[in-house]
């Protein structure tokens, strides 16, 4: 009888929980993230799959956690990209030689390490899903407001300041690759952060993705906070429509339809020439937008990109990213650094955009509302909506949404370019 009970105890995960209570912390974290996603509606489309990925990855014996590939020394010999299994042994062949996970076939990964590792190494580590999601984002993006206020797109560059400011600080506590991955949170773009981290510091993927998406969900809190600290009431009352009337633009648009078709092709070409490493993100973003703007002839492609493909990609991206957050990968001091550094990067990015507006206002007769600089970070369209609400609080006739969308959409391109630069220099 005692033996049977022992076997049942061994079959369940209870023994592992007693041996290593850290699993319980991770499961509680998963519950908290699920609460934020479901009840508080913080980016539920991504936070719910990520949180559920965290949950299923942290049941010991479930085999759903993603193993990190690290260089390991065995008997004085260095083996690249080896995997240490949850029981502490190194994943090896029949002769005891550790496998290089990037050199073995996917069926062997599925057989030995489980289906979640198969999905992670096939879909995420290969860098496939972030560009696919960018294609969907492109299909859902309207570049019309940006084309109508093209000059305001420059603030999409100012708001990348946070990325490089935090890189400077983080480089003192992390390796350059880790610092680059942490800093890209300031771009306020989830797929970009994931793509960059995969290239530079894949072992930090889980915490960085969580930080990036959590701060994006907190845009309605962070943007007003930074704006309140850095802008005066007079600046926030600058009415963009009145400024347009005072200093009318000579630009006219005779055929917006054709313009919107040519624009994604032109942007892809420009980015491809200047920063080739950003093409996988910007190129797919613009492809998604092109099939939307062509109209009837490509409507089937548009439907696939913006619905089926994007939704499937989001599910797998979320679950796999969550599954990387195992006890070893998450419960360490670096995670605290990522959470703090990510917040700083986000705040500095908003400040960078505001600062650029303030500098331009010093030299220009036509004044610009600093909220348009604050929306230079990518979180589209939430940042613009939040900025519009702030503007309306100070002046109920001051609708800045369309102006903000210009810098906001430019911010998506800006953060993808910044990611390309980080990958090209640090990768």
């Amino acid at each position, binding site marked *: 009888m005692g033996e049977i009970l022992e076997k049942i105890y061994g079959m369940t995960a209870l023994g592992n929980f007693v041996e290593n209570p850290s699993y319980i912390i991770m499961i509680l974290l998963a519950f908290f993230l699920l609460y934020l996603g479901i009840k508080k509606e913080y980016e539920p489309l991504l936070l719910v799959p990520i949180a559920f990925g965290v949950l299923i990855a942290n049941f010991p014996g479930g085999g759903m956690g993603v193993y990190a590939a690290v260089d390991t020394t065995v008997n004085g010999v260095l083996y690249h990209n080896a995997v240490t299994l949850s029981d502490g042994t190194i994943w090896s062949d029949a002769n005891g030689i550790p496998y290089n996970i990037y050199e073995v076939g996917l069926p062997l990964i599925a057989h030995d390490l489980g289906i979640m590792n198969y999905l992670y190494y096939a879909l995420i580590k290969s860098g496939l899903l972030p560009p696919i999601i960018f294609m969907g984002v492109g299909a859902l993006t309207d570049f019309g407001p940006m*084309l109508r206020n*093209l*000059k305001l*797109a*420059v603030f*999409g*560059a100012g708001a*990348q*300041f946070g*990325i*490089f*400011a935090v*890189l*400077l600080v983080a*480089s*003192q506590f992390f390796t*350059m690759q880790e*610092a680059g991955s942490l800093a890209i949170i300031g771009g306020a773009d989830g797929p970009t952060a994931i793509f960059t981290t995969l290239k530079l510091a894949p072992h930090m993927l889980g915490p960085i993705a969580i930080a990036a998406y959590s701060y994006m969900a907190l845009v309605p809190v962070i943007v007003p906070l930074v704006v309140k600290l850095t802008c005066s009431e007079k600046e926030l009352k600058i009415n963009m429509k009145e400024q347009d009337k005072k200093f009318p633009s000579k*630009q*006219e*648009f*005779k*055929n*917006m*339809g*054709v*313009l919107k078709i*040519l*624009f994604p092709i*032109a*942007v892809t070409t*420009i*980015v491809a020439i*200047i*920063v080739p490493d950003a093409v996988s993100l910007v190129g797919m973003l613009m492809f998604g937008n092109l*099939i*939307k*703007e*062509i*109209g*009837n002839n*490509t*409507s089937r*492609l*548009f*439907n696939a990109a*913006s619905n089926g493909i994007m939704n499937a990609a989001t599910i797998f991206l979320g679950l796999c990213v969550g599954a990387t957050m195992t006890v070893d990968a998450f419960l360490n001091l670096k995670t605290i650094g990522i959470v703090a550094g990510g917040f700083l990067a986000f705040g500095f990015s908003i400040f960078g955009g505001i600062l650029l507006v303030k500098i331009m206002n010093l030299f220009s007769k036509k004044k610009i509302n600093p909220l348009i600089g604050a929306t230079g970070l990518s979180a589209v369209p939430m940042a613009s909506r939040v900025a519009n609400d702030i503007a309306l609080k100070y002046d109920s006739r001051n609708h800045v949404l369309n102006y903000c969308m210009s810098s906001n959409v*430019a911010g998506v*391109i*800006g953060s993808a*370019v*910044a990611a390309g*630069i*980080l990958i090209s*220099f*640090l990768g």
Partner: protein
Amino acid sequence: MNFENFGQSLQLMGIGLATVFCVLLFIIFFGNVLIKLVNKFFPEEEKAAPSAAASASAVDANVAQAINAAIMKLTGGKSKAEKIERI
């Protein structure tokens, strides 16, 4: 303090911000050129070119007719659909 990392980060900050500015300034410049070219060579908006997003939500006339016929039959001709949208 790690001066090597600090120096590299400072260098990346300069190169990175300058490149992002350059790319967006190029996009603004070529965007304006594109606007002028389109105004010159395609001055009129084509009417029959709804975007993919618009056409995706539209319902085919035959489908609308079939839905209306079904509603009329079920309600004994008392009701008909005024607007049909894909959701």
